[in-house]
Structure formats: structure tokens, C-alpha cells
């Protein structure tokens, strides 16, 4: 016989301001099996929880209903409260009378009160059928998988490894380093980006607890928190890294060149290459799409049609250790992990979508990141800022902010956060390169919300003589050797025309290609722009709704380097906390098969998305379905398709849902 206690929360005025809590308590008191109905101002507070504990013990309650905010807020908290009295924590039900009642019906108190009563009635009818549930313990594989080897992934990896756990870092490029390796200097300190990054890269490469897999991609992830199994595709480098010493002879002599992705098309690289000088690992890969010998091998394999490609093999001939391995194939490697951290970072917006700015066809209209490559001493021009079209030194440089950001028309309404700062940085650095350069920055607003950021921006104006013009340019066109920018100065209300030698577009941040596919592989949420979605935007910035999958850095949203480093550390802390336990407690809200009712049709086996149901033969020779408790996620798909209604979902049983429907005003 159920003895139910109902606790109605005021939540200050959040609930009580709209719902007549006293009336609610009056009505609920009279329901059958409700032994106690009471209210309190802030049920989740210490005194609030204490009063619940007392009430449970004093009244010998064996079921609890708390009418308060959404269960997604405090169900876990209240379960602990109930558990502390010795009562099973799964004998609790939360009635959501805030987010789904008082907050949305603030215009009609009577109606809100009536609805609150209904909602509590539903919860009461459901809680009667709750049974005590006991979570099981599972082992945890104390290995972390970090996807993405940029600064965020590197930081997370180092922190987890230093906490004593094993880490595997998977990076799809031939080297770790991410976007930071492409930058010249970082704001607001103007630290050399490579100088602060490379020591961390080297640390990672040498750390005894970190296994680095570059030129690899995660293809599949199965399992659940503490027990993931990942399939990683190691792409074929065609170079044996165990033999290779990184001497560099091969890439110096390779005759096949292509525009370099690292230099964003401003320079060239060879077919066998390392992306940049400080690459980790400092050993090359062969780009099989352009390698001459690979082309030759394909030509032979496909029947020798057409012109015969050269049988190059120069790298192989020159390699002192014989590291070139033409028959190396790609490999699918399966590894076990306890946690996954997604740190796949960003790419910059492709400004060729802006036809009004030349559609990517003007060589002297470049992106901010391309300017970084020009300014970088290890870049395609050795650090000389010259016009890509004719190599001349620009004297007038115009910047356009918010290209691919704050632009509804281009489907990118959000602000990319870092561009105001990096544009100011570019202008300051150009003045350092050449005191005669005059910079103009077209802006909408200047956003300098970080430490020392405002002072940095003022430096651009005071020291570097930058002229800021408030107005988004409508057009950039070519006029002889110059580029003309048609804009407006909104502060004086006049159109403005600037003739520049070089135009730099401050392109926005968007998630790296394949971010959405990876999110689907991990069963994590992503938004319209493919940014990963955090479990809670304010309070849980590095977790996702999927236990064991964490997110960090720019793949979650536009942010700068210090934030990314902090993020990586935060994710590492979460992972370390997870691994610090000996076992993991699983959620007992899972499906259970009533063996007597099961007719062995096995429809549920096919339907289960997690392959958590298998079958066995009973002693009386019947075929029945059996649920694997650690794999079951409690989605309930099996139940809706079970013909004899043999499988039921604890916490959301068929009878419970029908009772909820029954209890309504129907």
C-alpha cells in the first residue's frame, strides 16, 4: 500500500506567484494514498531538503512526489535527498509545475493552478507504480580518446595524462597543432604563436602516457560511458615512421608540387611532405592523390590506358633508411576507451560566398588567416607582406570585419568573437612591418571583451594610426592595380570610397568539416551551424547530453586561445573525475523482459538501436529475449513494438503511462 508524500515548492515567486500553492496542497491532500501534502519556499535548498528527509522518516513514506521545477534540473538532487533517508531513490517522481506550468501560464492564475493540480495528479498516479531499482556497477576503461590535436586537444591530453591516465589523441592532419600553428602572433600579447605552441606539441609527442595517431580519423564509436569501443582509420602514409628520421631529404627533392592547404593556397608543398617545419611527428606522409609514382602504379593496375606517368620514386631512392613503403595500406584499428573528448576546432568562413567582395577570385582580397601566413616568417613569403597578384608591397591596406559573421543573408547571424581583436592585431603588426602602411578597418562594432583587449584596440588607434570606419562595405572592385572599397561611414552619414593595395577580410569561425558526421558517430547533439551542443550552456560547458562524451574548444562555439586552453583543462578535469572512480554506476531505468510473456518473436532484437537485446533458450525450451543491462539505454523502442507486451521499461512502464493518461481530466 503506497504512502505518498507530496511536496509542493514555491520556488520563491517563480511558482507561487502564479500557482495558488495553498489550494494545490488542499486538493492533493485529499487524493487516495496521499498521506502528506505540504509546501515549502525553496525545496532544493538545505532546509528544504532537510524538511523532506524529516517528513519521509516521520510519516513512514514509501513514495515521494516533488512538485517543482523541471526534473531535468533537480531530479538527481532530490534522488540523493530521498536516498539519504534509506528510501530507494527511484521511488521519487517530479511534477514539473514551473517550466511547463507557472512560467508559461503567468497570464491566468486560475488556469495555472488547475493545471498544476492535474500535473501533480499525474505524478501521483505514476509514482504508485514505481518500484525500488538498484543500479549495477560496471568497470571503467581508464583511457581517454581525444579527437582533434589542436591547442584544445593538446591541453586536454596533457592534463589527463599528467593525472596518470592513458590518452590516445587522433588527429586527421599529418601533424598536430591545429589553427594555432598557422598563426604568426597572438593577441593581445603579440606572443609568437609557434613559440608557445610547439613546446606543448613536443611534450605531447614525448609523453609516456599519450599515444599519438596522426593522419587518422575516428570512424565508429560503440558502447557507453566507461566502456566505449572506437574504430579508428589510420590512413596510409606510405612512409614507415619507425624507420624515418625526419631528415627532410625526400620533401626537399620531391618534384611534384601542389598549392599548400596549410598556407591556404598562397604557397606550394610537395607530394611527400610535412605540413610545417615544427610538425609533430616530424615525419612526412605522401599525398597519394598527387604522387607521381602512385599515379604510375594506378596506371599499371588499370590496364595502362593513356599516357604513361613517370615512375618517379625519387624519395625512395634518396631515403637513407629505406622508410618509403609503397605497399602500406590503410588500417582500421579498434581501441577501448572510457571517455571521449571532442576538440575538433574550427575553420575560417569561405569568403568566396561574398560575390560582392570578388567571390574569392581577386588575388589581392585575402582572408585574415591568409594574412597570417604572409606575415609569418615560416610562411610562403618568408614573412614579407606582399600582394599575391604582383608581389608589390602594399601601402594602403583595408580590412573588412564580420565577413561570414553577423550576416543573416549568408546564414551566419552569430558573432565570431575573435575577429575584432585579430584585425586590430593585423593592423598593429602591419605598421611594425612597414611604418608607411596606412590601415583602414571597416567595422560594425568593436568587441574587445577580454583581459587587456580594450587597451590593445586603443593601441591600434593611438600607436598604429589605424582609421576605423563604421559601416559594412557594399562592394569591392578592381580599378587598375588598386582595389576600391565602397562603404559608408555611418557616424557621419556619408558614403566612403577607399583605394587599397590589399584587402583583408576578417572571416568568421565555423566548425571544421565533418564535425556533424562526428557528432552523429558519437550520438552527441550539434546545432544548425554544426557547433557541438553543451549539456547546459551556462553550467555544463564541456559535457554533452551523452554521458562520457565531452566537448571542448572552438568546436563548441567561437572562442579564443585562452578560452580554448581553459576548456581543454575543464574537459580533462571531468574525464579525470570519471576515471578516479573504481567502477561506474549504471542507470537502472532500463528495459526488462517478462520471460513468462515473451513469445520469442525477437522483433525487439532487430529494433534496438544499441544492439542491447539478445536471446536465449529457457529451461523449458522456449526462445526468449534478454536485455543486456549495461548496453540498454532505456529508450523504450522495444516496448512499443512488443506484441505480447512482454518487455517493459522501468520508470516508464506501460501501466505507468496509461495511469498518467487516466488521471487527467479525461
Amino acid at each position: 500500500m503506497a504512502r505518498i508524500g507530496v511536496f509542493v515548492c514555491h520556488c520563491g515567486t517563480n511558482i507561487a506567484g502564479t500557482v495558488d500553492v495553498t489550494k494545490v496542497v488542499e486538493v492533493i491532500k485529499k487524493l487516495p494514498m496521499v498521506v502528506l501534502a505540504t509546501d515549502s519556499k525553496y525545496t532544493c535548498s538545505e532546509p528544504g531538503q532537510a524538511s523532506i528527509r524529516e517528513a519521509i522518516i516521520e510519516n513512514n513514506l514509501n513514495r515521494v512526489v516533488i512538485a517543482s521545477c523541471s526534473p531535468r534540473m533537480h531530479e538527481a538532487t532530490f534522488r540523493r535527498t530521498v536516498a539519504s533517508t534509506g528510501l530507494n531513490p527511484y521511488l521519487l517522481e517530479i511534477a514539473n509545475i514551473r517550466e511547463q506550468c507557472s512560467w508559461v501560464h503567468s497570464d491566468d492564475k486560475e488556469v495555472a493552478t488547475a493545471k498544476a493540480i492535474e500535473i501533480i495528479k499525474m505524478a501521483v498516479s505514476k509514482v504508485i507504480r514505481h518500484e525500488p531499482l538498484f543500479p549495477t556497477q560496471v568497470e571503467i576503461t581508464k583511457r581517454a580518446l581525444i579527437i582533434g590535436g589542436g591547442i584544445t586537444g593538446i591541453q586536454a591530453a596533457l592534463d589527463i595524462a599528467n593525472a596518470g591516465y592513458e590518452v590516445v589523441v587522433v588527429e586527421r592532419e599529418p601533424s598536430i597543432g591545429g589553427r594555432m600553428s598557422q598563426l604568426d602572433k597572438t593577441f593581445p600579447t603579440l606572443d609568437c604563436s609557434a613559440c608557445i605552441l610547439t613546446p606543448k606539441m613536443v611534450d605531447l609527442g614525448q609523453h609516456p602516457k599519450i599515444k599519438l595517431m596522426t593522419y587518422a580519423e575516428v570512424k565508429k564509436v560503440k558502447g557507453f560511458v566507461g566502456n566505449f569501443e572506437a574504430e579508428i582509420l589510420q590512413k596510409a602514409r606510405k612512409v614507415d615512421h619507425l624507420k624515418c628520421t625526419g631528415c627532410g631529404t625526400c620533401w626537399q627533392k620531391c618534384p611534384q608540387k601542389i598549392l599548400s592547404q596549410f598556407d591556404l593556397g598562397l604557397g606550394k608543398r610537395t607530394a611527400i611532405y610535412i605540413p610545417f617545419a615544427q610538425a609533430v611527428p616530424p615525419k612526412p606522409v605522401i599525398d597519394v592523390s598527387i604522387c607521381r609514382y602512385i599515379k604510375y602504379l594506378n596506371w599499371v593496375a588499370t590496364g595502362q590506358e593513356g599516357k604513361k606517368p613517370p615512375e618517379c620514386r625519387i624519395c625512395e631512392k634518396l631515403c637513407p633508411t629505406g622508410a618509403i613503403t609503397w605497399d602500406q595500406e590503410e588500417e582500421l584499428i579498434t581501441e577501448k576507451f572510457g571517455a571521449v573528448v571532442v576538440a575538433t576546432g574550427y575553420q575560417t568562413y569561405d569568403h568566396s560566398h561574398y560575390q560582392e567582395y570578388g567571390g574569392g577570385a581577386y588575388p589581392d582580397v585575402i582572408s585574415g588567416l591568409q594574412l597570417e601566413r604572409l606575415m609569418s616568417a615560416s610562411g610562403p613569403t618568408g614573412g614579407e607582406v606582399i600582394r599575391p597578384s604582383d608581389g608589390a608591397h602594399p601601402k594602403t591596406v583595408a580590412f573588412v570585419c564580420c565577413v561570414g559573421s553577423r550576416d543573416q543573408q549568408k546564414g551566419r547571424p552569430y558573432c565570431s568573437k575573435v575577429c575584432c581583436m585579430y584585425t586590430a592585431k593585423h593592423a598593429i603588426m602591419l605598421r611594425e612591418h612597414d611604418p608607411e602602411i596606412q590601415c583602414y578597418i571597416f567595422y560594425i562594432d568593436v568587441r574587445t571583451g577580454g583581459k587587456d583587449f580594450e587597451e590593445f584596440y586603443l593601441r591600434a588607434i593611438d600607436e598604429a594610426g589605424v582609421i576605423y570606419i563604421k559601416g559594412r562595405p557594399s562592394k569591392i572592385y578592381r580599378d587598375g592595380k588598386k582595389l576600391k572599397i565602397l562603404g559608408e561611414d555611418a557616424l557621419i552619414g556619408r558614403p566612403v570610397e577607399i583605394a587599397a593595395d590589399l584587402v583583408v577580410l576578417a572571416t568568421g569561425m565555423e566548425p571544421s568539416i565533418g564535425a556533424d558526421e562526428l557528432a552523429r558517430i558519437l550520438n552527441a547533439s550539434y546545432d544548425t551551424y554544426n557547433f557541438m551542443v553543451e549539456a547546459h550552456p551556462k553550467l555544463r560547458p564541456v559535457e554533452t547530453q551523452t554521458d562520457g562524451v565531452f566537448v571542448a574548444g572552438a568546436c563548441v562555439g567561437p572562442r579564443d586561445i585562452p578560452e580554448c586552453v581553459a576548456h581543454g583543462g575543464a574537459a580533462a578535469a571531468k574525464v579525470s573525475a570519471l576515471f578516479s572512480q573504481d567502477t561506474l554506476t549504471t542507470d537502472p531505468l532500463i528495459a526488462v523482459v517478462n520471460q513468462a510473456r515473451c513469445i520469442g518473436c525477437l522483433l525487439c532484437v532487430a529494433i534496438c538501436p544499441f544492439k542491447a537485446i539478445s536471446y536465449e533458450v529457457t529451461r523449458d525450451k522456449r526462445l526468449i529475449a534478454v536485455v543486456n543491462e549495461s548496453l540498454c539505454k532505456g529508450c523504450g523502442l522495444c516496448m512499443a513494438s512488443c506484441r505480447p507486451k512482454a518487455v517493459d521499461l522501468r520508470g516508464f512502464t506501460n501501466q505507468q503511462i496509461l495511469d498518467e493518461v487516466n488521471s487527467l481530466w479525461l
Partner: protein
Amino acid sequence: MKKSRYAYYPGCTLKTSAKEYDISARLVCKALGIELEELKDWTCCGAASAHSIDQLLGIALPALELQAAAKLELPLVAACALCFSRLKFAAHELKEEKVRNLIGEVMGKEISQDHHYEVVHLLQLLDENTDKMKIEKPLHGLKVACYYGCLLVRPKEVTNFDDVENPQTMDRIIQVLGAENVGWDFKTECCGGSHMLVRPDIVVKLSHRLLAQAQQAGADCLAVACPVCHSNLDSMQKTIAAKYKDNIHLPVFYFTQLAGLALGLPPKQLLLDKHFIDPLPLLMNKGLM
């Protein structure tokens, strides 16, 4: 979507100062087997002043033409970009019930809600029928700057005509004719439009920029699809060149005249001698005549 009969709305300029556009358009359509049925009793589309003075008048005037075409159960084609713009605006506005009721009152009869008015520009018509073109005299060696003007592409939701920044409809036609398109950045920038009547200084400034850019891009000539653009760029060219002391000399063709030439029609028939900037020396130079 290919049709061979269209209701044709020439508009006032095509019957007067832009006769060569009307005549060349008809000749080319005839050669392609497309029937243009000129609307009987058509009136002003209101492009010059009506829509800036009275919104209702600005919609009611073109609405008349839309109704006339609807009665013939034919899609409506316009050659002038201004007429095209007003007709498109009317078709767009008539989607609203309030507007339909108001216009219905003005016209004295109810306008049905279900009717979808189809309005195209002559460029779209020719672009759809390039496969029917039998090119007798390809315009090899002629470098053309295709100038669309601003009204064809904007506002995007109303005209729904090609890409706003870099349209290709005319470019495609020019290519089929055997000529070469120069890449230039001013395809859809304003020429000054009807301002030539009250503020010729604006037209001189804007049209000069267009001509200078076309010249810089290496064009031998411009191709246009609007009589007002043609007037500004052609008849004002001498004034512009004098004011800016620029050595600009760019004949301005209607794209239909170029089409006619390529299809083998005699230049005299296409009224090529009616322009201010004589295109005949250029054509002879290139061996196209």
C-alpha cells in the same frame, strides 16, 4: 517550362526612342519560332514616376497588363527592365489578399486568389531557347561586357532573376553567339536610370564609372537589356567622355541586336545605324559585317 507563345508588353520606350530594341527582339523571336503576341490596348506600366508618387497607382497600372495577359492565358514577357520590375512587383503584391481587394476595387472587378502571374524578361526567354539558335555568323573576337543594370536582379524576392551579384543569363547567350564575355565587376551597378531627366549629373557620374570599368576590363562593347540603360550609356557617352576627359569609345548594343547579327540577319534591319556611338566601324574591324 519551354513555351513558344508569349504575351508581349513592349512599353513606351520600345515604341519610340528604343525602337531598335523592339524590332530586333521581334526579328530574333521570329527566327527562333517564338510567337510574341503584343497586348492589345496596353498602357503605361508606371515605371517612370507612378510608383514613387502613389503606391496604389504604381501597382494598379501594371496589374492591368497582368490581367490582360492572364486573359490570353499566356505568360507575359517584357523587354525593358523597368517594365519588368514593375510587372514583377505587381505580381508579387497581388499575392496579398488586401492588395487584391484594393486593386479589384480600382479595376472594377474581382481578382482571383489562385492565379499565379508569370512574368519573364526577354533575357530569360532567349536563354531558354539558345538551343534553337542557328548561328550563321558567330561573333568571334568580339569582347562584350554584359551589363544587366540594377532592376533585373533586385529585390531578390520580387524578381527572382539569377544571382544578385554575378548573374549569368546574358553571359550565356553571348557565349552561344560566339562572342567573348569579359569578366568585370559592375554587372548590376546602377547607371543612373530615369535620373537623366532631372539629375543628369548623377547619370554622368554613375555611367562614367560603368564605361571606364568595362573599358578597363578589356571590352570592345557593352550589351544591355534595358532601353534606359542604353540611352544613358549610349547617348550620354560623348558628354561623359568630355567631362572626364576620358578616351572612352564603347558602342552599346542591345543583346537582341547581337543575337540578330549572329543569326545572320542584316545589320540595317537591326537598326544598328540608329545608335549615337556608331557600332559599325567596330563590327567591320572584327570582320563581323
